[in-house]
């Protein structure tokens, strides 16, 4: 492949690609993201391929396997362009019908269409689906338009234009200014203004500088970075090249966790393709600027998502944070000035350069500009990836996009920002999702995980879960994080086991304060948030555990017992067969009963029972 040396050559290359695709009358877009892959989208793709060949239309139909579309709940997803017909829950058996009816005869297949759960009507096109309607998909929309393994697809939709513009028309100084003006803040959790970081790094003394892309996403229930890197790696690369040019770096690293095999593979392919086209390497676009990217795989330690620990890990040392009294923009990787940004931050850069900082700054709230990708999970109907304008109220995301809790249950709280974030109760759902508002509410937007909890969630148990996670993942270097979190977990376990004392609450509060002020790294400083925010908003639940020895949500095993409601029990025997401890007895069609001495409170009977006859006391 010839290297692209000038901006004109990029234009010519793009026109050639578009010309080659003129004959395509329609494109079948199949989601090949991790979520859809788990629901067998690979088989769907194979079946569609086979069918296209069998019906002899491979000339006019283009099959594109893309990254995640976001609506993972409904996967595997298939979209037929140009009419954007949206099919969900597609199985390999549907392939024949899709090709012969929708592609050949322009008919839509009713049963594959999405049904609006509110109105009960079928929805034909993607844009009309309520899940997508309330979103503002600046970054994610591209996921659907490109095959992550094809640089042609990316260039065809205008990719690497921003890079050309940045290298040829704008001075590095002005690029930094543009990013400052855009108001972009780091999407990894901290929310530090990206432009200021770049400016400091640019002005830092030294000729050797580095840029790093942090793709070591480890929050439970969060997968935004994964989907961007898997679905559109060139967008991240383009952002990194622009950033490197702006701050004067010649070497970049992508630190991606090895648990994301598809992301590792796709980004490797992307780097190779960009190198082959001369978009990475020596003299990019015929300028004197040279830049290359290396991919480093992380071993899956949560703490390696912290900037200094990540750099230590990149250098080949143990991934432990170090004090940041001197910032990494001055003393970073190998003690050289280093700019580290998260995947989503880098992915925002090409748009800012292409559309201008004012366009970016026109979106979002006062202190937080642009859009944010959220991973919506937990007790909610539409789990998936959501991209909304910063400052969108929580209730819009949970109810309008997420569709509320399944089975008509009441939502109690959302947990935002992963283990570093906190819980926000339902009466605060008017709060806008942005950096400052959530921080003031005792949580944070973090990397964008939004876990929805319904009435069956015990907040003490939630705090316990996150403490367990943090205790496992703490590097153990500093006292407050290693011992403080450990003691917090010890106390919370006492409370959830019914041995809690009232003074435990004030001790937890004091310990939380100590940890947040004195821990060494950012992850340690926020480690107590899960406890402090639940203590702040759900103190009565803690008190119920301590005073009444009761778990209001019926979760904490030591404080509950199961019994069978004689009115609802039909004597079907499902619970009896399901119980692994043989604690349930009863004759067929007669009310069953639970032997409390044998019962291990595993809850299997409760989830098995179709008549809601198992009650938690």
């Amino acid at each position: 492949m010839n290297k692209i040396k000038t901006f004109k050559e990029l234009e010519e290359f793009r026109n050639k690609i578009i010309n080659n695709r003129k004959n395509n009358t329609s494109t079948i877009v199949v989601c090949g993201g991790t979520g859809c892959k788990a629901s067998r989208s690979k088989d769907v793709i194979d079946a569609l391929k086979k069918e296209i060949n069998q019906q002899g239309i491979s000339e006019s139909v283009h099959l594109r396997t893309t990254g995640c579309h976001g609506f993972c709940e409904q996967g595997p997803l298939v979209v037929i362009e140009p009419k954007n017909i949206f099919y969900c829950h597609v199985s390999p058996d549907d392939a024949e019908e899709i090709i012969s009816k929708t592609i050949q005869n322009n008919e839509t297949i009713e049963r594959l269409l999405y049904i609006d759960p509110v109105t009960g009507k079928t929805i034909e096109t993607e844009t009309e689906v309520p899940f997508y309607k309330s979103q503002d998909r600046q970054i994610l929309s591209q996921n659907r338009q490109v095959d992550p393994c094809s640089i042609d697809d990316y260039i065809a939709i205008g990719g690497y234009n921003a890079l050309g513009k940045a290298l040829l028309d704008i001075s590095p100084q002005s690029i930094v200014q543009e990013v400052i003006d855009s108001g972009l803040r780091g999407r990894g959790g901290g929310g530090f203004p990206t432009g200021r970081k770049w400016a400091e790094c640019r002005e830092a003394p030294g000729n050797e500088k580095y840029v790093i892309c942090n793709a070591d996403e480890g929050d439970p229930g969060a997968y935004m970075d994964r989907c961007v890197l898997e679905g559109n790696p060139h967008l991240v690369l383009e952002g990194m090249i622009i950033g490197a040019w702006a701050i004067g770096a010649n070497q970049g690293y992508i630190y991606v966790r090895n648990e994301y095999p598809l992301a590792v593979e796709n980004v490797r392919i992307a780097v190779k393709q960009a190198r082959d086209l001369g978009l990475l390497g020596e003299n990019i676009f015929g300028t004197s600027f040279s830049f290359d990217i290396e991919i480093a795989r992380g071993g899956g330690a949560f703490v390696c998502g912290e900037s200094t620990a990540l750099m230590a890990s990149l250098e080949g040392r143990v991934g432990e944070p170090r004090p940041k009294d001197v910032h990494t923009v001055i003393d970073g990787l190998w003690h050289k000035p280093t700019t580290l940004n998260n995947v989503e931050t880098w992915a925002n850069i090409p748009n800012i350069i292409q559309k201008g900082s004012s366009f970016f700054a026109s979106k979002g709230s006062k202190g937080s500009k642009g859009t944010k990708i959220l991973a919506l999970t937990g007790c909610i109907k539409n789990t998936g990836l959501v991209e909304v304008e910063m400052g969108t109220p929580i209730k819009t995301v949970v109810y309008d996009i997420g569709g509320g809790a399944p089975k008509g249950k009441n939502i109690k709280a959302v947990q935002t920002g992963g283990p570093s974030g906190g819980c926000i109760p339902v009466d605060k759902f008017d709060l806008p999702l942005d950096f400052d508002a959530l921080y003031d509410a005792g949580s944070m937007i973090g990397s964008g995980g939004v876990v929805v909890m319904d009435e069956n969630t015990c907040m003490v148990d939630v705090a316990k879960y996150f403490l367990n996670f943090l205790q496992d993942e703490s590097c153990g270097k500093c006292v407050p994080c290693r011992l403080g979190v450990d003691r917090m977990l010890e106390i919370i376990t006492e409370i959830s086991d019914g041995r809690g004392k009232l003074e435990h609450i004030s001790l937890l509060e004091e310990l939380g304060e100590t940890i947040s002020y004195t821990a060494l790294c950012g992850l340690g400083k926020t480690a107590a948030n899960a406890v402090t925010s639940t203590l702040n908003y759900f103190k009565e639940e803690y008190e119920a555990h301590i005073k009444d020895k009761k778990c209001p949500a019926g979760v904490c095993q030591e404080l509950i017992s199961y019994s069978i409601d004689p009115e609802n029990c039909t004597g079907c025997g499902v619970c009896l067969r399901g119980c692994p401890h043989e604690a349930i007895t009863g004759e067929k069609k007669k009310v069953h009963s639970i032997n409390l001495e044998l019962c291990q409170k595993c809850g299997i009977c409760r989830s098995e029972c179709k008549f809601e006859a198992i009650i938690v006391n």
Partner: protein
Amino acid sequence: MIQEVTVNINGALIKAAKGTSILDAALDYGICIPHLCRVPYVEDLGACRLCIVEHVVNGRSKITTSCTLLVQEGMVVLTNTDKIRKLRRNLAELLVAEAPNSRAIQDIALRCGVRDVRYPFRNNDCVLCGRCVRVCTGKLAEKPLGFVGRGKNRRVEFPFDLRSELCNDCGRCIELCPMTMPACDGMMKPGEEHLCGNCESKLSDDDLALGYCVGCYFGEGFHCERSPN
């Protein structure tokens, strides 16, 4: 030539050579900041967090460890505010609950104001201050001692749990270990989470002249430059 800068510690203007830490500068002038993991002339780790101070920048104070904070011209630092004392006491309480049998840790906890400990004692043999790991220099400039594991499983160990041939038996690790001075009354028992304070008698002068270093027993064991020996 050594460049000197002036820093303001607790209102006192102090001259210190560029490159020294606030902790070293303060100790030089007799302003005692409790510390555990620091070893003179060895790279600081910032692990025990006991030497926290308030670093005031533009009227806003930031809490950071003084061992890793290097002096800069005009720097304003407060070492003994109510907030710092409270946080330090909580940190020392966490430490002493982990290793109540060490006289050094008991001393430090008492000095930070801990009497009754609110956590059950655990009687561990190591508080992971890392003093041994950092002073360890074996043969061939290789370090036989290191940290192994993460979080709760972190411990100090030779590579592959075998005593390394690289160890040159210098004994510095033992000399610097805060766990080598057992408390006078023998093993502390869980359920008796109280520090008797008898060791504190050695520090009684400190109570009379608060903030003035008396060269305490604790300092002796920890190679404090101002210790009597």
